C-alpha cells in the first residue's frame, strides 16, 4: 500500500505540491490526471526521490517504509518504481550492464540471492517478450538512440525486470502511437496483480481505455481537486479540466 499524506513540495522556494493525500491499496490502479503544470510529474519525481525538490511537509509510506527517510536506490529496493516521462540517455553504459547491476543491487538489498548470468538472461528474454522489446537494444547504451516508443517500452521492460510493488507511470503514453500504446498497456496489464499497485499519470484519457483504472484523481495547481471512478476520466475528456473546477465551485 502506498500512502501519501499532506505532501507539500517546492523547487527553488516555489511551492508545486500543496497538500496531496492519496492512498493506493495493493492491487489497485489509480490514475492521476491534470493540466500541464499542475504538478503531476513533480509528484512522480518526489516519490522516486529527486533531490531537486524540497519536501516541506507530509509523508510517503510504502508498505510500512517511510520513503522520505531513504535515498532513491533504497526506495527502489523497498518496491517503488517510477517510469520516467523522459528516460535519460547514458552513453557508455549498456542496458544489460546497467540492468544487471540494478537488479542485483535491489536483490542484495532485499536479502535475495543475486542472479547469475544465465538466470539474468533467461529473465531478460521472458520480460522483454512481454513488451515486444528487441533484445538487441540491450547491448546498446542505456536509452541511447532509442526511438520514443522504444524508450517507453524499455521503461516498462525494466519495471517487469525489477518486480516492484508500487509502480508510478509518468506520462508513459506521451509520444506513443496507437500500436506502441497498446503494447505498453498490455505489458502493464500483465503485471497487474493483487500485491501490486499502480499510479498512472497521464494528460489524456486515451491510455485509460487500455489500462482501466479503479480510481481517477484530478490534480490542479498542486492539489487533488476531485476523485472519482473511471467515468471521471471520460467526463474530463469531454469537458476539459476547467469543467472540474467549475463543477467544484458549484458543489461548494
Amino acid at each position, binding site marked *: 500500500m502506498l500512502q501519501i499524506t499532506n505532501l507539500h513540495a517546492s523547487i527553488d522556494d516555489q511551492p508545486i505540491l500543496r497538500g496531496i493525500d492519496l492512498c493506493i491499496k495493493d492491487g489497485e490502479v489509480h490514475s492521476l490526471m491534470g493540466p500541464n503544470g499542475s504538478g503531476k510529474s513533480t509528484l512522480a519525481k518526489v516519490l522516486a526521490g529527486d533531490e531537486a525538490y524540497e519536501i516541506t511537509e507530509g509523508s510517503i509510506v510504502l508498505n510500512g517504509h517511510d520513503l522520505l527517510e531513504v535515498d532513491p*536506490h533504497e526506495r527502489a529496493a523497498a518496491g517503488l518504481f517510477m517510469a520516467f516521462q523522459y528516460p535519460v540517455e547514458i*552513453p557508455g*553504459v549498456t542496458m544489460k550492464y546497467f540492468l544487471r547491476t540494478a537488479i542485483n543491487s535491489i536483490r542484495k538489498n532485499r536479502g535475495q540471492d543475486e542472479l547469475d548470468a544465465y538466470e539474468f538472461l533467461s529473465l531478460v528474454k521472458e520480460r522483454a517478450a512481454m513488451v515486444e522489446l528487441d533484445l538487441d537494444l540491450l547491448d546498446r547504451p542505456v536509452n541511447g538512440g532509442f526511438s520514443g516508443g522504444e524508450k517507453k517500452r524499455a521503461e516498462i521492460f525494466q519495471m517487469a525486470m525489477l518486480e516492484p510493488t508500487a509502480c508510478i507511470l509518468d506520462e508513459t503514453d506521451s509520444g506513443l502511437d496507437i500500436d506502441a500504446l497498446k503494447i505498453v498497456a498490455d505489458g502493464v496489464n500483465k503485471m497487474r496483480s493483487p500485491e501490486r499497485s499502480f499510479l498512472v499519470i497521464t494528460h489524456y484519457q486515451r491510455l485509460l481505455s487500455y489500462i482501466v483504472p479503479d480510481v481517477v484523481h484530478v490534480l490542479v495547481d498542486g492539489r487533488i481537486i476531485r476523485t472519482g471512478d473511471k467515468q471521471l476520466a471520460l467526463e474530463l475528456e469531454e469537458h476539459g479540466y476547467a469543467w472540474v473546477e467549475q463543477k467544484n465551485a458549484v458543489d461548494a
Partner: protein
Amino acid sequence: MTTNQPCTFSDRSKAIAPDGFTARRTEAIDRFQEILWPTMRDEAWRYTDTRPIASVEFAAADPASTADLESIAPFMLDDDMPKIVFVDGVYQASCSTASNMPGVHIDRIANVLASDPQRLADRLSAHADWQDDPASALSTALLTDGVLVEIEDGASMREPLHIIFVSQGGPDPISVHPRVLVVAGNNAKGTVIESHVGTSEHTILTTPVTELIAGNDVRLDHYRMVREGEGTWHLGDLALHQGSNTEVSSCVLAFDGPVIRTRMRGTLAGEHGNAILHGLALGHGKRHIENLLRVNHMVPNCRSREAFKHVLEDNATAAFTGRIYVAEGAQKTDAVQTNRNLLLSSTARSTARPQLEIYADDVKCTHGATAGELDPEAMFYLQARGVPTEAARSMLVQAFAGEILDDVAPASLRAQAMMLLRNRLPAAEHLAVIE
C-alpha cells in the same frame, strides 16, 4: 654509488663508449645543457613544474639491475604474448620471450648500435624533435638500449609485441631513458604495446621516447600503459611519421604516477593518412597529468582524430594542449580534437589549450574541450532503478572512460585497463562484471 662514477647528465653522456650514435649523443647533450629544465614561463612547460627534479642529481642505473618475474607478473598481459623486459633500462634476458616473426625483425637497439648502426641512421631520433624538449634531448644524449621493430614490406606482425619497462630504482635517484623505434615498410601491419610500470617509491626520472615510422599503406597501432611507482617522474615523448594511405594510432593510458607528461607529435607526410591519438588519464591525490599534442598536416586529404579524457579526483591536475598545424596546400584536411575532463572533486583542476595553425583554406578542423561533473540526471536515473549512489557514480566514470577503452584493440590490454579502473572505483562490488 661510488664517487668516481659520472653523476651529471653531461658526464654520463660522455662516458658512453663510442659507437655509431656518438655524434648525435653529443649534439643532444649540448642541446640539453642549453635549454636545461624550463621554468613555467616557458609556453610548453607552463603546466608542469620541473623544479622538483631540476636540482636532483640523477645517476645511471645499476647495470646489473634485475627484477623477479613474480614482482612484474601483475603488469603482464597474455602469457603467450611475446615480450621484452627492461629493468631500469637494463635488458632482462630471463623474462624476455620475443623473437623475430616472419618478416618482422625485433632487436635490441644496443645490439644494432654495435653491429649495424646503419639500420638506425635517419631513423633513430629523426622524428622525435628532441631539439625542442629537454626530456627528449636527454633521452637522446643517454640512449644506449631499447627496442627496434622493423616490419618488412608486406609483412604483418602476427601478434602484438609487449615491451615492459620496469622503473625500480634504489636509494639514490636514477634516470632511465627507454627507447622504442618501430619502422613499418610499405603494406606492413603491426601492434606494439609498451607498459611503463613500477611499484617502488624511489626517486626515478624516466623519459621514454617512441618513434613510429610508417611507409605507405601501413596499419600500425601503438599503446602506452603508464603505471609508475610513487616516486617516478614520467616525461614521455611519442612521434608518428606517416606515409600515404596509412592508419597509425597511439593511445596513452596514464593510470599511475605522480607526474605523467606525454608529448605526442603526429606528422602526416603522405596523402590519405589517418592519425589517431587517444589518451585516458586517471588522477587522484596530488597527481599531475599533462598531454601536449601536435599534429602536422603536411599534405592534402589527411585525417586526424585526437581524443583525450581525464578523470580527476582530490587535488589532481591535468593540462591538455593540442596544436593542429595545417601546412599551405594541405587542402581537404579533416582534423578533430577533443579533450574532456571529468572533475570528481571541487579541488581537481583541468586546463585545455586548443591551438589551430592553418595555412590552407579548404579544411575542416574542429576542437572541443569540456570540464564537468557527473550528469545529475543520469545519476538520478540509475539510483531510481536501485543502483546505490557510489555504484552509480562509478558506473558513470566507467562510461566516461569507456569511450577510450572500447577502442583498445588488444583484448588483454583492454581487460587489464578496465579491471584497473573498476578496482579503483568505489562500490566496485555492486557493479556487474563486464563480460
